[in-house]
């Protein structure tokens, strides 16, 4: 620009010189136009080195009234030069000037009172060597006069002037079309001082090199009031208005059709392109910008050095943003919608070049703002903020958020402060934010599993996050966060089935964390405290309420979708209440830890004080409960236990269970169990039920096959009891796991008869080694019971149970099973040692039916009785199935002196002095259907020996034979009904049975059968 100004001034000076010369000639010699023109053209060579031509020169009084002036027509200056397009330096259709010639010649002072050019052209050119085509004045090197010309411009005007400028050296060109120029001032030596105004229809400036800098404007109005020294130094006030301004560098538009106005106190060094701008006020499309400082362009490399301070007015962001060249901000703002009033004040310092950009700092005030971003699901309104912006395009641009407040989704207030590093790249935000939020307003952002949100939250968030505008923003961008939230009247609905309520919930989230208390790759630490938490399933069949709840939880990286969720928490509650269908439970002071390594493996550590509740009408209570467990989930399992495969160590104390419809209380003073699907170890299980009190230890196996219905639940247990009421125990386990068909039959029987038989539990294979001090069955008390009890899938076996009562020492092996309700199997092998016969009959009345003769004896005997039969549902014997074998060995018995004995003694001619003592008695008996066969046995009473044998039927008909061997051989048949027996003397039936040398075949067979019976009975006797 300084070149153009210089050239303009020089041109103007040259023109002025020509006019002065012309005027002088006119004044001195010639007054006619033709003569004046001839004189001027002839004299021009004295002043000009270029071709000079004026068509007409005349005097004018009107145009310069009241002074006389010259009126020149078609003034042409030509100065051809290499590289120049046109050789015309100056052309003016009309030129009018009035000046004081005498003052000019005498005092070398040109006072131009009036000078105007009309309809002209100025074509300025500087070649590559720096020679301008406007250096057309003759200079006299011999002129050493100290006096210099001065010019006083009273009124200089140019109308409709086109000015073209081309500098081949600096590759600059400029064009001003239809320019009107007004100049008023003085020119002395190298100092121009005055006021100039330029109005041009079009102004264009461009670089003719690869810079591709372009500036243009229409309706340009420029005024300058100041000095211009040495055609280089400018010091004045500049005002400019430019319409439709375009500033383009390469393809980047810095101004694009904008209206500009500038006012500035300018000091400029044109040769060095150094500008010092003070009180500069720039208005770009009504956006005001005040600038102070310096700008300098390095002419060698076109670098622009800036040191500016700026301050804007209140800009409308939505109006400003389109003005910002895309090259400066790229596509950073493409996905943003930002508006509001923004005011900036700051500095621009540094160099602007191809490789450098100046540092721009700014204090930014943002008011009444609105902000939205494509991937940010929240819009912010009513934003007010103060920011410190540091825009360093060469390095990193940062923003400090000094304060920011806004509302989002109409009624949610947030505030924030912090920093944003690398604003124009991958941003790193360090934000401290608070929010007063209505949770339901953010429903769309929260997990879709929850279908309803209600409540308010005061949230404090301290977070570090990164954001790359090139990629979609997600929560993964959060690198560190500490979130504290207080929720009031929280109400959540999960899958429309679970309602979660808390009037007051505190949440403290921190991530990432460095501590590793659970070794699960801890990333998130969550502390949750609430005085009340309620969970209801809908419809409200399940409800869980907690008081004083404290959760201290960790999860692994929730943002890493490639890893499974891991969760660990310590928990503590004052109280937890659970209601689920007919289940109610209350847990006092539960606490412990829960660790979920993944959705398949979980660990639980639980302790609590009192646990009480009910399942239906079954009530339970425990004073303490401790659990240690882990689960390993397996897919494809329908059963919950198999699916979760729990391993549990459970201890409880002073527990009780009251079963529905059972009067007795199940008490568990101590229970210590290790459980897993393969094995359950009862380390200690003290159990009381009704009057019974047992201690059980041992293992239960086969749980998994049992749950799959592929095997039996196997138990190997030690049972020790002080007292066991078998009646109660049997009632407790009656029908356990029985097949549906059997249960239905039992119900039918109970309906018909009011009672149903005992059904042995099914699905189990339990082996119990028992030691029972006292047991009650029916009305009989047994003492010191020891032996094994098996329960195997509907079969109950008592194996070699040793027991005593007041009548005898006993060993019992028994089996009871319930294949169907009207076909119950009962078998037993009863071995009674040293039993009092009368007590035996009292204890087992059925013995009198089987062995009615036994009541004729008194004393102790050994009784071995094995029998089995099927029973009807009312326990009636199915006689067709009755089988039995018995052996009786007695010593020192007394035959009771009853009516039957008297009849026998009479028929066999016993002496009245006969002592009714029996040394020994040994007999075998079989029972088949309703037949009781007494195999022949030898009986000695006093001096009499007899063999007794026979049969009686269970209908109480008798067919017995007494073969008296000593002192005479005689037989006695006893036949008939019990109360009408017939005694018939006859032959001794077994005279030689116990005389081997005389024994007959039949008798031998009988003895073999006796041996067979005895052997098989003895086989069941425990050594």
């Amino acid at each position, binding site marked *: 620009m300084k070149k153009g100004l210089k050239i303009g001034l020089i041109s103007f000076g040259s023109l002025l010189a020509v006019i002065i010369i012309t005027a002088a000639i006119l004044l001195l010699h010639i007054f006619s136009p033709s003569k004046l023109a001839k004189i001027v053209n002839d004299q021009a060579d004295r002043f000009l080195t270029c071709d000079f031509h004026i068509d007409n020169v005349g005097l004018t009084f009107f145009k310069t009234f009241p002074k006389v002036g010259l009126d020149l027509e078609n003034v042409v200056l030509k100065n051809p030069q290499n590289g120049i397009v046109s050789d015309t330096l100056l052309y003016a259709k009309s030129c009018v000037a009035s000046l004081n010639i005498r003052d000019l010649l005498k005092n070398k002072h040109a006072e131009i009172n009036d000078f105007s050019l009309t309809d002209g052209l100025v074509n300025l050119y500087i070649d590559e060597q720096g020679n301008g085509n406007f250096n057309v004045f003759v200079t006299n090197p011999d002129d050493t006069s100290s006096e210099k010309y001065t010019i006083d411009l009273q009124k200089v005007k140019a109308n409709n002037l086109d000015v073209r400028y081309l500098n081949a050296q600096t590759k600059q060109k400029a064009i001003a079309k239809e320019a009107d120029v007004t100049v008023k001032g003085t020119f002395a030596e190298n100092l121009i001082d005055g006021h100039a105004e330029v109005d041009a229809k079009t102004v264009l400036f461009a670089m003719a090199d690869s810079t591709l800098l372009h500036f243009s404007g229409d309706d340009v109005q420029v005024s300058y009031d100041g000095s211009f020294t040495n055609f280089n130094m400018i010091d004045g006030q500049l005002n400019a208005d430019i319409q439709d301004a375009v500033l383009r560098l390469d393809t980047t538009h810095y101004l694009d059709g904008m209206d500009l106005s500038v006012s500035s106190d300018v000091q400029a060094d044109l040769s060095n392109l150094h500008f010092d701008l003070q009180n500069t006020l720039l208005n770009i499309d009504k956006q005001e910008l005040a600038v102070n400082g310096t700008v300098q362009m390095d002419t060698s490399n076109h670098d622009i050095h800036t040191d500016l301070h700026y301050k804007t007015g209140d800009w409308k962001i939505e109006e400003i943003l389109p003005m910002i060249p895309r090259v400066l901000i790229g596509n950073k703002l493409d996905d943003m919608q930002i508006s509001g009033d923004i005011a900036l004040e700051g500095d621009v310092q540094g160099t602007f070049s191809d490789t450098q950009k100046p540092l721009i700092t700014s204090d930014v005030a943002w008011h009444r703002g609105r902000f939205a971003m494509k991937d940010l699901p929240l819009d912010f309104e009513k934003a007010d903020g103060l920011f410190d912006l540091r825009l360093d395009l060469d390095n990193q641009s940062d923003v400090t958020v000094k304060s920011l407040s806004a509302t989002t989704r109409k009624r949610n207030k947030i505030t924030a402060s912090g920093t944003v590093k690398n604003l124009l790249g991958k941003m790193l935000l360090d934000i401290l934010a608070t929010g007063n939020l209505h949770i339901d307003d953010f429903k769309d952002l929260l997990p879709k599993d929850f279908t309803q949100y209600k409540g308010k939250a005061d949230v404090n968030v301290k977070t570090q996050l990164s954001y790359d505008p090139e990629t979609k923003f997600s929560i993964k961008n959060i690198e560190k966060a500490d979130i504290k939230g207080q929720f009031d009247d929280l109400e959540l609905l999960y899958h429309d089935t679970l309602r979660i309520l808390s009037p007051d919930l505190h949440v403290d989230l921190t991530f990432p964390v460095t501590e590793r208390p659970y070794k699960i790759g801890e990333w998130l630490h969550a502390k949750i405290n609430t005085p009340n938490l309620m969970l209801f399933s809908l419809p409200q069949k399940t409800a869980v309420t907690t008081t004083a709840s404290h959760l201290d939880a960790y999860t692994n990286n929730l943002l890493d979708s490639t890893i499974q969720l891991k969760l660990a928490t310590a928990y503590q509650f004052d109280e937890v209440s659970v209601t689920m269908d007919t289940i109610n439970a209350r847990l006092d002071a539960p606490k412990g830890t829960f660790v979920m390594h993944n959705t398949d493996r979980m660990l639980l550590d639980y302790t609590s004080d009192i646990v009480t509740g009910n399942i239906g009408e079954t009530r339970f209570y425990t004073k303490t409960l401790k659990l240690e467990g882990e689960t390993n989930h397996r897919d494809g399992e329908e059963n919950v236990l198999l699916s979760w495969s729990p391993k549990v160590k459970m201890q409880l104390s002073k527990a009780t269970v009251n079963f529905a419809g059972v009067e007795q209380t199940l008490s568990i003073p101590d229970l210590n169990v290790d459980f897993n699907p393969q094995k359950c170890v009862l380390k200690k299980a003290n159990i009381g039920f009704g009057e019974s009190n047992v201690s059980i230890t041992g293992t239960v196996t086969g749980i998994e096959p049992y749950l799959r219905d592929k095997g039996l639940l196997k138990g190997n247990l030690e049972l020790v009891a002080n007292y066991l009421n078998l009646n109660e125990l049997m009632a407790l386990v009656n029908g356990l796991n029985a097949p549906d068909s059997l249960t239905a039959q039992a119900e039918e029987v109970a309906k018909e008869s009011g009672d149903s038989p005992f059904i042995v539990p099914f699905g189990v294979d339990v082996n119990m080694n028992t030691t029972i001090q006292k047991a009650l069955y029916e009305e009989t008390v047994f003492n010191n019971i020891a032996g094994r009890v098996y329960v195997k899938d509907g079969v109950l076996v008592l194996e070699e149970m040793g027991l005593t009562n007041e009548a005898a020492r006993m060993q019992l*092996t*028994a*089996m009871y099973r319930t*294949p169907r309700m*009207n*076909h119950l*199997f009962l*078998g*037993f*092998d009863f071995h009674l040692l040293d039993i009092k016969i009368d007590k035996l009959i009292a204890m087992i009345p059925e013995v009198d039916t089987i062995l009615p003769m036994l009541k004729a004896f008194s004393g102790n005997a050994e009784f071995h009785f*094995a*029998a*089995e039969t*099927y029973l*009807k549902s009312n326990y009636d014997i*199915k*006689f*067709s*199935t009755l*089988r*039995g*074998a018995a052996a009786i060995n007695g010593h020192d018995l007394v035959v009771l002196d009853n009516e039957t004995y008297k009849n026998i003694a009479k028929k066999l001619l016993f002496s009245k002095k006969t002592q009714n003592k029996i040394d020994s008695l040994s007999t075998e008996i*079989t*029972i*088949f259907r309703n*037949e009781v066969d007494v195999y022949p046995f030898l009986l000695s009473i006093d001096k009499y020996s007899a063999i007794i044998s026979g*049969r009686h039927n269970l209908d109480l008909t008798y*067919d017995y034979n007494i073969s008296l061997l000593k002192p005479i051989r005689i037989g006695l048949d006893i036949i008939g009904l019990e109360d009408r027996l017939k005694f018939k003397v006859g032959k001794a039936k077994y005279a030689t049975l116990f005389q081997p040398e005389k024994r007959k075949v039949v008798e031998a*067979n009988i003895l073999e*059968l006796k041996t*067979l*019976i005895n052997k*098989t*009975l003895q*086989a*069941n006797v425990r050594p």
Partner: protein
Amino acid sequence: MKKTNYIIQKARKGLQVGLLICCLVLLMGGCDLFSHDDKFDKTLLSGKWLSGTLYEYYAPDGTGYTWDILDDVTEEEAQPFTWTLENATLTQIHKMEMGGNVPKVYTVTKLTATTFEYHDDYGKYYTFTKEQ
């Protein structure tokens, strides 16, 4: 004296009767009337026999089982025994699940393809017909 004569007369009568019986026994023994040495074809025993509501099944291998539908017992619920048939003596040994044995000895009086009869020493008779 009167009593003594009475006893002597009684003894004589008894002796006469005894002698008469001895003669009859000798005669009957000669014609094998009381012989228990009847032999029956045990192969005829195989199969299911029915006497009223009582069933017995004999297998050729010496096993068998019995049930009585009067007591609501089905064949599947029948109780086992082993059997032997020596001449006319049928021995059933009924096995108890608990381990005992209950032997029963019968005398077979008839065994054909369709009829099976036996009795025990206490005069209990059974007549079975073959079930197809």
